[in-house]
């Protein structure tokens, strides 16, 4: 009798990495907080440190964890659904749908000053616009998913929707004023610093829901790796599985994009990095591992984006791609092969 390997060492590495980066993320920033002050600042009122920790650093670190694990899980679900290593959470066009509506709010708002002002006074406006944009594409994709029967067609349709919405965004950018354009461009660069406790609550609920649905689909996800015919022969209901995978990914991508902007790279790369660390196909192990990996990567990227000790801040998207891409290239070259 043989059991599947448990990967204790790898799990421990991921856990230590996650906790370590979480602590580092809180203590590092434009104001560096020494470790002892960090502990006391967490527990007792230490004036400025406590304010920084509780009002800024911890929400930001938790946002990194939620966004990182959400995007990475979304990426894993898409790569498995499409059996395609190039898939990420944004392939369904949700991110570009969100971008489109945010672009409309920020760039078209200029023609209607009154509307634009009311919208800007509401700090949730961008989040709501992004959610609505994502949801519109999402409903479109869901209805198409019920109509087309194979995954490759769905992938291509997702990419086409993505391309079409992106081009509308380009047109809007081309015709808009420099100031509005800058606000929009800053949003597209991604940020984890804009979420307070209230937004964090909403993000946590939606990401939690998305990941729970994903984890509930472990059997279907594993089955999908065999291909449609074998999966159906194993009594896996393909239509229902595909629907719920799309729902889970939609929730994860939509929520993260709404609060943090379109964060690139994490969803595509983390599943590959995790599979190189833990070479396994069982999603029961892969999903928690990918969550920890995504959270760790985003925490690390955020630390680097803050340029510890300086008041300068780099755009998050630049950092995720800049440090992530060479790592993935190196790993792919080293292992000669990459797949789902």
């Amino acid at each position, binding site marked *: *009798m*043989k059991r599947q390997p448990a990967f204790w060492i790898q799990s421990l590495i991921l856990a230590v990495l996650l906790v370590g980066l979480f602590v580092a993320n809180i203590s590092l920033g434009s104001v560096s907080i020494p470790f002892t002050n960090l502990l006391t600042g967490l527990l007792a009122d230490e004036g400025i440190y406590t304010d920084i920790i509780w009002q800024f650093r911890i929400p930001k670190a938790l946002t990194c964890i939620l966004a990182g694990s959400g995007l990475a899980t979304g990426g894993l679900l898409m790569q498995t659904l499409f059996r395609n290593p190039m898939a990420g959470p944004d392939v369904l066009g949700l991110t570009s749908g969100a971008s489109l509506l945010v672009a409309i709010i920020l760039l078209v708002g200029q023609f209607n000053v009154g509307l634009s002002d009311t919208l800007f006074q509401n700090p949730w406006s961008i989040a709501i616009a992004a959610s609505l944009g994502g949801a519109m594409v999402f409903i479109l994709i869901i209805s198409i998913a019920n109509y087309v029967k194979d995954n490759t067609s769905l992938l291509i349709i997702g990419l086409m929707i993505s391309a079409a919405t992106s081009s509308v965004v380009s047109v809007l950018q081309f015709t808009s004023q420099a100031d509005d354009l800058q606000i929009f461009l800053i949003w597209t660069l991604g940020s984890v610093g804009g979420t307070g406790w209230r937004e964090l609550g909403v993000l946590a609920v939606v990401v939690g829901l998305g990941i729970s649905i994903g984890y509930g689909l472990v*059997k279907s996800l594993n089955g999908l790796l*065999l*291909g449609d015919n074998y999966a159906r022969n194993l009594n896996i209901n393909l239509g229902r599985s595909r629907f719920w995978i799309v729902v889970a990914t939609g929730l994860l991508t939509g929520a993260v994009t709404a609060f943090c902007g379109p964060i690139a790279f994490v969803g595509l790369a983390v599943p590959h990095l995790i599979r190189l660390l833990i070479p396994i196909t069982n999603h029961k192990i892969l999903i928690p591992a990918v969550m920890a990996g995504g959270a760790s990567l985003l925490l690390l990227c955020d630390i680097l984006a803050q340029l510890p000790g300086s008041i300068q801040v780099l755009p998050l998207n630049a950092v995720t791609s800049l440090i992530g891409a060479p790592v993935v290239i190196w790993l792919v070259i080293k292992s000669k092969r990459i*797949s789902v």
Partner: protein
Amino acid sequence: MSDLKTIVLQTNDLVVGYRKADKDIALFEKLNLNLCAGELVCFMGSNGVGKTTLIKTLTGLQKAIGGSLEISDNQSVAVVLTDRITSSLMTVYDLVTYGRYPYLNWRVTLSREDYELIDQAIRQVHIESLADKKLIELSDGQLQMAMIAKALAQNTAILFLDEPTAHLDLNNRVEIMNILRGLSRTNGKTILIATHELDLALQTADRIWLATPDKTILQGLPEDLVLNGTFDEVFQFKGFDLKTGKMSHEAYRGVEIQLEGNGYEYLWTKNALERCGYEIKQASKLKVTIFQKENKLAWKFSHGDYTRDYFTLMSLMEGLAIHP
């Protein structure tokens, strides 16, 4: 005696095909076929006749266009298709584990019984040493064994295989057919194999389903279908004599040779002579006699007073070729 057989699968006027642009295209019409418990049936037909479509329809992966399909006790069917598995991380053990999926809950927790059935399936196809290998590290034959093990772990009474011996060498083909043969004999599994490999089918199948060009399927014992000429009709053999099981050769040299000997030495010498264009005929002027010389196989060639001994068929063929 025939009453002992229990029918496990029965089709009633089944119409098999596919939908294209809202039109049903039938590949087989009004099929009334059956499979009995513990029977190994080879389903034969030319390439493109619709073997895969029928297998998928019988497995329930594809809807029938018409008619009905009955499987006793609503049992499920395990299937080995020609679909490639693309995951490069999946091991043989992982693959066989999938066989238990129909019986597992959403958390895919394996019970002691599941582990035992997985181990048993791996043992049945003799791939114990491959269990931890990744699928991409396997040869085609080993991969096919792993796929069969997965299907066995499904623990179904019926097993369908689509071209399980395609792209395999003779040794692997024979091994796979022997394993399947054994599973039907000793484990009472009902096995349907779609194949176009006539020689293996003729030697292993209890019965043949033969797809004909007029969209029906004939059933029968392999030998009956050979002797009544059905195979010749369906396959339109070009240069293959089914009744002798050999390629037909043309005696293009126009030379007759008398051959003396017996056993398999005789058969292989005859094979060599016919392949090289000679005709074997009694009472010819040229004569080849197979004999033993110093405990070694030898061939004596004689033509009137001229005789010569050869120790390999190659030298004999060369000698014959230059003989005036």
